[in-house]
């Protein structure tokens, strides 16, 4: 597995991935839907799959002393590592924003644990759609990305939309308990014990969903790729 992972990083990484990872700096933009930065990372991962495909990676890997299942698992682990790098960068940016950007984000979710939880859900959606879809053929990277992009954007619109709506409702002076709860506990920096608890639960749930979806995605991908002929 170590050798396969090394192969992924030395041969399959597309240079654009680093640019997309650097787009975590978008979290410094005031009033912006920060989850979009995660979509760009998914785009970077898709570029890596394309790069591998165009370079005949499937056949090269098939000639190495590894099974198809190991090859798929290594690629899934590669995806997880990239996503976790982005999550760690996001956490650092959120910590920085706690001090440097105290204003509420009018464009989506605030810098918070909730944002990281939503990012984990986004990556879970990407993994569960993209990986099994790609490994159904082993080469249709574009179709798989299109399908996953639809899922990702529905999630971005739903989650950030909900935060924007809660802001708007609260600013209008109408007091609806549901939106007040979001405004005071989810879409805010976790400065109170209650908000921190709610966001920690959200983060735990997001992490759990990420782990379950990614393991399931890897399992389905392995099963599907076994049936694919490497040509």
């Amino acid at each position, binding site marked *: 597995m170590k050798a396969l992972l090394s192969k992924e990083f030395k*041969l399959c990484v597309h240079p654009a991935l680093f640019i997309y990872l650097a787009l975590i700096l978008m979290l410094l933009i005031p009033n912006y839907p920060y989850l979009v930065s995660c979509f760009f990372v998914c785009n970077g991962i898709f570029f890596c799959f394309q790069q591998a495909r165009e370079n005949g990676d499937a056949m090269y890997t098939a*000639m190495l002393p590894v099974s198809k299942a190991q090859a798929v698992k290594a690629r899934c682990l590669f995806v997880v590592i990239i996503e976790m790098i982005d999550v760690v960068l996001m956490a650092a940016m959120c910590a920085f924003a706690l001090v440097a950007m105290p204003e509420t984000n009018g464009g989506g979710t605030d810098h918070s644990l909730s944002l990281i939880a939503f990012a984990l859900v986004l990556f879970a959606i990407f993994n569960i759609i993209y990986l099994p879809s790609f490994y159904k053929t082993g080469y249709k990277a574009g179709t798989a990305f299109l399908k996953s992009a639809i899922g990702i954007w529905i999630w971005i619109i739903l989650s950030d939309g909900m935060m924007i709506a809660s802001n708007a409702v609260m600013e209008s002076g109408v007091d609806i308990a549901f939106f007040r709860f979001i405004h005071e506990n989810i879409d805010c920096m976790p400065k109170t014990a209650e908000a921190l608890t709610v966001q920690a639960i959200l983060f735990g749930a997001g992490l759990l969903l990420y782990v379950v979806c990614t393991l399931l995605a890897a399992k389905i991908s392995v099963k599907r790729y076994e049936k694919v*002929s490497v040509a």
Partner: protein
Amino acid sequence: MKILEIKDLRKAYPGFLLDDVSFDVEEGSIMGFIGRNGAGKTTTIKSVLNLVHADGGTVLFEGEDLWSNETVCKKRIGLVLGEFNYYKRKKLKAIAAVTKQFYEDWDEETYQALLSRFSLDPEKKISELSQGMRVKFALALALSHRAKLLILDEPTSGLDPVSRDELLDIFRSIIEDGEHSILFSTHIISDLEKCADYITYIKGGKIVVSTDADSFKDAYRLVSGEADQLERFRSTLIGYRAHAFGFTGLMRREDAERAEGLKVAPADMESIMIYTEKEDGHESAAQ
């Protein structure tokens, strides 16, 4: 001792069936795997290596089931599936650095010696190599991890005659110790004439014959005769080509020995394959 045993290998595609393919590769020998394009050579090799999921059959490598011990077995198998056409923008040294991580038995000294022998510059990119040099690089990688069995799919197809001859010499030297073996698929039959100990001939997804090279050639004779003799011998000719002065064709040895009035000569592998492929439709030069 058999290093590779393939039994009843089966794979069905729409319009093509790999039909119960069975043959063995003996330790210390070169097995030539011949057949025309589309006969099933590559499908057989890919099925053996689990690159293609076979519908049935068994593959034993050194007595072990290859498919259930894939990782372990593949460490002792060197593979060359045509020229090295992967990661063309990467340097040879980058590809080698990645590849050698997969083999505990990687022999850097052998690898460096092969680079020199093949005049391969590790600083060059794959895209800068000619077709022949890419085959040589694939061979250098395959030969550098002390593989017991080399499986080569069309390794000489893109090479010039001098390079091909050089490679055939290398193949012979590899098996000299009696412990290494080569399964060598090709449609360049003259290469096998020079180096193969055994021949397996596949046609339309079925094995026609699998035997030692001498028996393979000895089982057939090239015959030629006058045009008026053709009708008399047509039923015993495996394949033939008619021309203005008569015909030339292929017969089984026992039929050729009984064929009075025909000129009989030893058959070479290429003629055997060409005339056998004509079996289903005899060709006339006059048409």
